[in-house]
């Protein structure tokens, strides 16, 4: 994939000095309850550097073409988790997705298909690409994502061996972008399911040797809307922009529940 695309790009660049820009159509699913009860697709065709990101394209559209386009973003560098969206049917961060990686070219070197952008699925759409994240964060809060200890505060740091730290290293990377939870078909159909992100963040503390509420969190996830609803589809692992092995973390929680060892 990458090589032919780069060849085309280099050929394009050789053509003329200004033509490092390519014309891309962004097909964005829009919804504005103040205007219509229905969502609809709208095309924006703009010239953009293929090395820029989808977020840059959204900025260009919002700043130069249509100021009513509404989306969340904050850090623009893959840290805050604000801009998860469905790009060409897959959940990604707009700020981590390069145009060149998602457009395809036809024989003449022109972009052959529009790039589709829509809000993440399974959460209430409020406007354009903005969804109501409350149910997502409710599930997060419900797994107690904080350190729980008993006894007196130690006077120095709580020590932990490198091996113990390693057990939950992967799940510390979560930025709560909801890409995983909103890629899960179980969650799409039933938002009562805790969803992968909540389980990832429970895993973060269940397997932390310094934490003492592992049993409690396991009991919470033993619920009928807990880990047992996971059907191992791996959508979450594919979606995670941080490369967290989400499905593996969920399986580790299942195993801990069965063996009661963690």
């Amino acid at each position: 994939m990458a090589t032919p695309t780069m060849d085309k790009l280099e050929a394009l660049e050789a053509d003329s000095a200004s033509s490092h820009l390519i014309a891309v159509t962004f097909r964005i699913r829009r919804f504005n309850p103040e205007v219509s009860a229905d969502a609809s697709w709208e095309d924006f065709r703009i010239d953009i550097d293929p090395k820029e990101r989808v977020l840059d394209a959204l900025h260009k559209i919002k700043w130069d073409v249509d100021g009513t386009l509404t989306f969340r973003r904050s850090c623009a560098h893959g840290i805050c988790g604000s801009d998860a969206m469905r790009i060409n049917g897959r959940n990604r961060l707009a700020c981590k997705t390069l145009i060149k990686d998602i457009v395809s070219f036809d024989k003449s070197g022109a972009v052959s298909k529009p790039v589709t952008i829509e809000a993440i699925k399974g959460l209430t759409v409020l406007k354009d690409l903005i969804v109501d994240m409350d149910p997502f964060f409710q599930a997060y809060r419900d797994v107690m994502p904080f350190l729980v200890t008993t006894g007196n505060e130690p006077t120095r740091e709580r020590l932990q061996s490198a091996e113990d730290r390693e057990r939950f290293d992967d799940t510390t990377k979560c930025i709560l972008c909801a890409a995983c939870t909103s890629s899960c078909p179980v969650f799409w159909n039933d938002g009562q399911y805790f969803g992968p992100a909540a389980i990832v963040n429970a895993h973060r503390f269940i397997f932390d040797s310094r934490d003492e509420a592992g049993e409690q969190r396991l009991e919470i996830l033993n619920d009928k809307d807990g880990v047992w609803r996971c059907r191992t589809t791996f959508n979450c692992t594919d979606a995670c922009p941080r490369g967290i092995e989400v499905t593996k973390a969920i399986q580790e929680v299942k195993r801990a529940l069965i063996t009661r060892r963690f």
Partner: protein
Amino acid sequence: MSSNNAVTETSSAIGVVEGESLYDVDHPAPVIEAPRQRTNKTPKATRGNFEMAAWLFMRLSGVVLVVLVIGHLLIQLVLDGGVSKIGFAFVAGRWASPFWQVWDLLMLWLAMLHGANGLRTIINDYAERANTRLWLKGLLYTATVFTILLGSLVIFTFDPNIR
């Protein structure tokens, strides 16, 4: 109504539909809701290990079913002349042996419970309204119990001399 400024002056991307829009800033349309959302009123942990047991059962019964079902298919459909051999006498001959009785009984119970629990998960996944769930599950459990009981009855009371 008669004024021609009915055409909403909007730079919004969503094109002005014919006539006046039903919705405006003060009267927005309902947002597009997702099914069965979690709120802070969602009941917290229900005690008990039923879901874990069901999950384990699916995997364990699955492993046993591989042997039972493949064996069953081989005997019924492949070996020794395939389907053409199946008849009353063939069934009567096999059920004369307690081994095949237990085999078929086990297969009946495991497949029915496995299939029923699988459908239960699917109903939980897809039925959004509490009432729909209730009725579908009611139907499922009734059919399951009926089939298991009828099947067991047949296996235990089978009379090869019936005419």
